[in-house]
């Protein structure tokens, strides 16, 4: 897939991104390197993995990381219960035919996401989500998979990848990842979108939204994100939820009262709500909307 094709595909899939983002993804695909995406929660890191699977028309294999995650949950595990049942059946029936090779064969192997991606018949997308949440030991284990695209299972030997998967790693930057992991990846940092870009995202994801509503919502959200005292800044997903709710309430534009009444869809913390009341409030929102009066002209609405 060429770079212009990739850009068009992103647009078609409703994933609105800038040129740097699409070029970085293109390079990751071309160089067959894992793509490490960092950024605040809700900027579209996980969505990138899903969209790539859609664009490449392939399976999305997802590995959600958490502290304590180990190879048995990420790579493979022997189906111990099934092996035991097989041994008991063999004993009860008096066959005595079962061998060690039988017990440690594919029939008793439980594939976990990493192995599944490596043994996949077609090039799949492997999404390793929130990699910063896993332990450093597991991160080191990922090195082998991400650099050689092969895994070693003592009973079966080394299994190379049938097709090198497209690997997308996401991180909320809660802890610094090791240099070793970063070295193997192409790096992309996603920021919260600018107002114009967020308007495009809203229009792409929420059909039937009025131009003015999309513009005003994006302005208010942008101003909220500038409030550094907020514990959690509104994500793109929350923006979309908010707009969808406003559309279902038949709103075509925003006003201070509507914002105040529906803000729980965006600010999900009591302290953040207090920050909003203190710093902006209904009057502050009205001022933002007045300022964005010109925005209606920019987006071509009345």
């Amino acid at each position, binding site marked *: 897939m060429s770079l212009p094709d990739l850009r068009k595909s992103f647009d078609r899939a409703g994933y609105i991104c800038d040129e740097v983002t699409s070029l970085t993804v293109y390079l990751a695909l071309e160089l067959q390197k894992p793509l490490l995406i*960092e950024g605040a929660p809700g900027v579209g890191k996980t969505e990138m993995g899903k969209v790539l699977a859609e664009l490449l028309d392939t399976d999305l294999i997802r590995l959600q990381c*958490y*502290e304590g995650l180990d190879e048995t949950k990420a790579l493979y595990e022997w189906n*111990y219960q099934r092996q035991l049942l097989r041994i008991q059946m063999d004993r009860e029936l008096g066959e005595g035919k079962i061998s060690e090779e039988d017990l440690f064969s594919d029939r008793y192997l439980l594939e976990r996401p990493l192995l599944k991606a490596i043994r996949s018949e077609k090039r799949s997308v492997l999404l390793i989500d929130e990699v910063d949440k896993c332990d450093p030991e597991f991160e080191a284990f990922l090195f082998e998979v991400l650099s050689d695209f092969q895994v070693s299972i003592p009973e079966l030997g080394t299994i190379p990848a049938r097709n090198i998967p497209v690997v997308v790693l996401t991180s909320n930057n809660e802890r610094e990842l090791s240099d070793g992991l970063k070295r193997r*990846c192409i*790096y992309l940092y996603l920021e919260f979108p600018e107002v114009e870009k967020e308007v495009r995202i809203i229009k792409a994801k929420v059909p039937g939204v009025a131009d003015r509503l999309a513009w005003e919502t994006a302005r208010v959200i942008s101003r909220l994100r500038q409030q550094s005292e907020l514990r959690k800044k509104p994500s793109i997903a929350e923006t979309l939820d908010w707009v969808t709710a406003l559309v279902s309430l038949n709103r075509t534009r925003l006003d201070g009262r509507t914002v105040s009444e529906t803000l729980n869809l965006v600010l999900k913390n009591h302290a953040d709500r207090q920050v909003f009341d203190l710093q902006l409030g209904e009057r502050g929102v009205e001022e933002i909307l007045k300022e964005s009066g010109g925005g209606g002209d920019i987006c071509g609405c009345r």
Partner: protein
Amino acid sequence: MRMPLTEETGQGGYLEENLSSFCFLLRNEGLPVGTTELIDALHALTRIDSTRRMEFKAALQATLVKSSRDRAVFDRLFDQYFVPAEQHQMRSELLERQKEKRVRSIDQASSDLQFKGETLQLNPEELYQYSALSSDQRDKLLDFVTKTEQGKNVQPRFRPLLETVVKSHLRYCRNQDDRVEPGKGISGSGQGAGSGGPDELALRDVDIRTIAAADLPAAEQLLQRLSRKLAVKLMRRRRYGSRSGPIDLRRSLRDNMRFGGVIFNIRRRPKRRHRQQILLLCDFSGSMKRYSTFVIHFLYGLREVVRDLSCFSFSDRLQDLTPDIKDRVALKIMLDRVVRRSKTWGGGTDIGCSLEDLRTKHAGTLNSRTTVIVVSDTRTVSLNAAYRELSLLREEVRRIIWLNPLPPQQWADYRSVELFSETAEMWPCSTIAQLEDILIGRL
């Protein structure tokens, strides 16, 4: 630094060499750029239209930069190194003009600074510095040289003495210029820090003591965010994989009785994870006031998530700030109270006496789960007593982390640093970036 190179020169068969030099510059600025990254970058450039500046830059950024914090450094170096052809030409001409001007200035300075018909022996850098002084400063210095020359019984052999005085004066002027103007700050605007903007990046690496008043709100917001980051790390809930922890034989047998005693489901004993207890000891003597305030600010955000956060300030005696933290008193009010309660606040330091207070009067806060964080430059009266008390404290607690704002190159000059390092993990900590690395990376 090398002369800037154009993208066009890069395409003339020297791309590898240019890129290698650029990587060298990035490494000099602390970016972890190795051969792998360089090879990746070269591969990436073969797959894009490298005549387009945006694509060229994005390809290098994707392959050479692996942290959001490094992006500002990359942007700055890229703009300096890969200069468009017209701009390169203009810059070359400007550099040429500057070079000529510098030569003229040095010649002029040599002819100005004469003593008994001989030129003062100053190096070109000093001569240039003289020419760059304001006309007032230059006149004063020249006046001083002339008057010295015209003084009674002044011999030509006094020249070295005069040279030393002139050099000292120039050094003094340079130091004055290097100081940050109070209130001007890094950002210049004094606006709050955004999410990872250049102001914030600059704030991270500047010595905390030199942060200007105008930049303090931005620094405080940055500290609040980092504090929340640490809180998330400390309070994260764990899920355990099926193979973590030792086998719990008793539970496994009981669970598998229904299978006739065949161990079908293995039960494991989860690893016990104790909550950390943090005890913060902040030196509030004159030189340490700013550093201690910043560390308290950093850890203050943990009060909601860490049940056992104790905080003490000390100078010559210990002062318990924990009740204020538990009552959720606002940070500014708490720091005001510290000033009011302590008569010697901002004065000298007696670490030994303060540690003795801690050990004898607040023994309940010390146990094998306690991590003690000391913020101090180690300077104290009664060094031996302080060393003895620190050793006694170490026996009581899990670990002692010492945040020392003195530059590491000065550590060898202080016996206290050497002694305290025997019992405490000592880390240099004079910037927010170092504070973040230690508290988030090592706690």
